[in-house]
């Protein structure tokens, strides 16, 4: 991923900042600039998520693209944030521990590297809540 393409989404990726529609109250993460329910009558503002949620479904990736190959096997999940929206994320935990319904919270971690000497991408991962 290009540097500008990555930096454009830094606040969202690092801090779990999404958006919210003040017309209907629906929250969005990943952020949306148009509410699919209200469309042009919606009003979108930034929203800081608490970062807590539950695992809806998961997998363990054993074979990845070149960018992620050095980190296999890793746990990947769809997490439903307590505010409602769902996102795709890695879960940093022993792969045999991951389960549907598990409570998790967001942390700031290294996500991927673009090659040996390339850019290291950081972003949000999730960890089990103790």
């Amino acid at each position, binding site marked *: *991923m290009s540097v500008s393409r990555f930096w454009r*989404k830094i606040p969202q*990726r690092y801090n779990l900042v999404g958006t919210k529609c003040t017309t209907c109250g629906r929250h969005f993460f*990943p952020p949306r600039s148009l509410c699919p329910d209200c469309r042009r009558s919606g009003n979108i503002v930034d929203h800081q998520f608490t970062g807590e949620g539950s695992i*809806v*479904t*998961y*997998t*363990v*990736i*054993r*074979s*990845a*693209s*070149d*960018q*992620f*190959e050095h*980190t296999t096997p*890793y746990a*990947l*999940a*769809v997490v439903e944030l307590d505010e409602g929206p*769902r*996102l*795709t*994320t*890695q879960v940093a935990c022993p792969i045999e521990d991951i389960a*549907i319904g598990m409570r998790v919270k967001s942390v700031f971690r290294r*996500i*991927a590297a673009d090659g040996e000497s390339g850019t290291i*991408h950081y*972003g949000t991962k999730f960890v089990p809540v103790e």
Partner: protein
Amino acid sequence: MRDVAVIGVGCTEFGEHWGISFRDLFVKAGALALEDAGVTGEKIDALYVGNMSAGRFVEQEHIGALIADYAGLATNNTPSTRVEAACASGGLAFRQAVTSVASGMEDIVVAAGVEKMTDVGTGASVDMLASAADREWEGFAGATFPGLYAMIANDYMHRYPLTREQLAQVAVKNHENGAKNPIAQFRNRITVETVLNSSLVADPLRLFDCSPITDGAAAVVVVPLERAREFTDSPVRVLASAQASDTISLHDRRDISTLDATVAAGKRAFAQAGLTHKDIDMVEVHDCFTIAEICAIEDLGFCKKGEAGRLTADGATALGGEIPVNTSGGLKACGHPVGATGIKQIYEIVSQLRGEAAGRQVDAEIGMAHNVGGTGATVVVHILGA
């Protein structure tokens, strides 16, 4: 709107074609289709070519023009358009051709699909296929394409009675059909143990749950039904052409294990044709992974949610079963050159309806094709009748 018919079909062998270039794959399929239709090149009004990612697989864009040129149609200045919807590119190219003929804009139209995937390494192709999902918010997190379908499988198995063995039966059945298909990439029979002993790709999916990386091309010729008899004694009618969209990301779906776009496109197709699932004699579904075939059978309405595993294990979807699914071997055994798959499905249905499917022939007068882009963000469904 005019009724539309398929008058000719052609398909290359699917597999690893180290010796054949992207353009020559297309030329081969196109020539077979024109020969079958009894049409010469200068009669063609337009081409629609399904292709997912030539820009990344062979570093070539502007596919429409390239194809027209090497098919010998540049001298006629024949219009040629590339159509892209990830793995549904082929089905969508067919729909564009049907729409054009139905509208009266064009008369003799070629719909084709082509993909050359084996010129890049596995890591690179995993990354390219992931671009069918959301690059920013799925791919960036480390989601692979098998990984997304694996999350569908885990959600499904958490909620419905599907065993790991039943899931494997999908691949076993599709290899059984592929073994009887001369264009199939894999013509070997496998057992449930073959699937369960293969390596894990993304839990719970193993290597034999996944469709392969494939080179291949397919082409079909469509005309107004009223002109079909000028060319052939056995035209195949297009009874329905439907398409639907859903969220690009799996995580934004209403229900992880139901492809709402499949449900919508299926309902629209049945309504157009004035038919129900009981009228369908065979169906080619988009089994990019074994779990995808399970979901497709249910989401198209052939059985209730949670029943497709048992249906498969009971043989209802095998050749000679109640509703034969993927007589071609499906994406799993016939192979999955992404842009060509949707056209190969039409090729298979036409072969079956014309009684030319030899060892895998089923008794069929009406067939359905179901082609999916991404994890269900685009779905194209066609119904054809003899």
